[in-house]
């Protein structure tokens, strides 16, 4: 308990310390504000853009793309992982394609998506799905395969139908690994959405970073970069909480 509290305190110290060093370095003229802006300017720009509604607009745009992509990646990943875990033939069929996806940095396919879908949300979503699909699939597969075969056989000999086996044993037993895959997927889906937006879109946090960079508006760019970093932290915390909950639910 005290250890937890002290690690929180140290985290806070480092956060405040970084802001102080950043502001001091700019105020003292060690680094030009053109390159790094300053915490005070970033804070002011954040409030101003919040009043205009700019932040909300871009945040919502990214959040919608993210949610769609994460929902598609999770349902497809879990469905395919389940099927592959229950039927070996499905696993073998998918194997070469999964290997391809796993070793290809999905960004290499981004220009292909642009050619097919144009700039905008469909491309962002497609890129993010490609980023997030493999860990969710792989974890679900491992989860289903690790279900105790004795348990399955026992249920089978007591007359459980395949559907019962699936719903009552395979699914609950693999939930922790599925959630683990989703934990990996969250970060990757976020990265996919942002990178696609960075390259070409007309709204979103990634777009705002690239757009303000183009006009050398360092302060506004910093606002959006920091916002993305905070979003990443919040999402990861949230997924960790879900994971803790699913562990409790299972037992």
């Amino acid at each position, binding site marked *: 308990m005290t250890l937890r509290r*002290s*690690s929180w305190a*140290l*985290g806070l*110290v*480092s*956060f405040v*310390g970084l802001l102080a060093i950043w502001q001091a370095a700019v105020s003292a003229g060690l680094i030009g504000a053109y*390159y790094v802006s300053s915490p005070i300017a970033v804070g002011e720009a954040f409030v101003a853009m919040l009043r205009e509604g700019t932040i909300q607009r871009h945040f919502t745009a990214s959040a919608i793309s993210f949610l769609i992509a994460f929902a598609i990646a999770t349902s497809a990943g879990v469905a395919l992982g389940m099927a592959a875990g229950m039927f*070996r*033939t*499905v696993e*073998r*069929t998918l*194997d*070469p*394609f999964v*290997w*391809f996806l*796993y*070793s*290809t*940095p*999905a*960004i*290499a*396919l*981004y*220009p*292909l998506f*642009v*050619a*097919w879908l144009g700039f905008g949300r469909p491309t962002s979503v497609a890129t993010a799905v490609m980023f997030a699909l493999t860990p969710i699939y792989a974890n679900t597969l*491992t989860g289903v*395969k*690790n*279900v*105790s*075969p004795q348990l399955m056989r026992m249920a089978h000999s007591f007359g459980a139908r395949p559907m019962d086996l699936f719903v009552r044993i395979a699914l609950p037993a693999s939930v922790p690994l599925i959630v683990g895959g989703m934990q990996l997927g969250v970060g990757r889906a*976020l*990265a996919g959405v*942002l*990178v696609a937006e*960075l*390259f070409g879109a007309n709204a979103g946090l*990634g777009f705002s*970073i*690239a757009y*303000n*960079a183009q006009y*050398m508006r*360092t302060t506004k*760019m*910093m606002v959006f*970069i920091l916002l*993305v*970093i905070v979003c*990443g*932290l919040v999402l*990861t915390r949230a997924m960790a909480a879900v994971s803790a909950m699913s562990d409790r639910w299972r037992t």
Partner: protein
Amino acid sequence: MRAPVRARSGRPAAHGLERWAGVIAVLVFLALWEILPRLGVVNEFFTSRPSLLAVAAVEVLASAQYWSDLALTMQEFAVGFGLAVVVAIPMGLLIGASPIARGIAMTPMMALYIAPSMILLPLLILWLGVGLASKIAVVFIASYFPIVINLLAGMDEIDGRLVRVGHVFGASRLQLFSTIHLPATMPHLLVGLRLAVGRGLLSVIAAEIFVSSAGIGYRIQMFGNSLRIDRLLVYALTVSIIGYTMSRVIGLLEERWGARSVS
């Protein structure tokens, strides 16, 4: 990783379809990819065809430009990744040795570990220009944090009793390090390196797509813009092969030094 095999021992051995399912799936995929555009079901303009891809591959591989693009991309990756390894390992060991240093450094490091490093690309370009330096920097950032964070996770798990026993029996710091710390952290370090390779490769391609005048990522972007899907795919497959090769190399290292017990 292969532990699940045991779970299947109750089933009959793989019969024909099961064993060849992967090969059949790929052949069916290639056949459909070749036939559907020819029948006009999908537009060949957007999908290309395997036979066109093969022709494009021969053309591209015969060109000097391909090899200079490959060399440039690999150079950017190797320098960024190499620097990350060289800096991250001593840094991780230093931070891991002091609870206070770790408490202070952990939050900002975690934040940058989680955030996609590509969002820093516009900032890095502002600082370092559009040339080689900003690409090396983004690869460095993408690879650095996975190594440090996993190394720290590994150092967390070192058994304090082992260190004390070693100490009592008069082991020097170097001996403690090489016989206890290093073997205990190696599996975590390898996990970090695996992540770092993937993220580094992704970053270099992304950076080249974002802004550059040469390199694999640039070519992919260029052929995408001009709808030369066949050539785009040759370059994209090159990236896959690089990714696959690197992950195999890490896999071999993991077999040698990785976690022996499968959890």
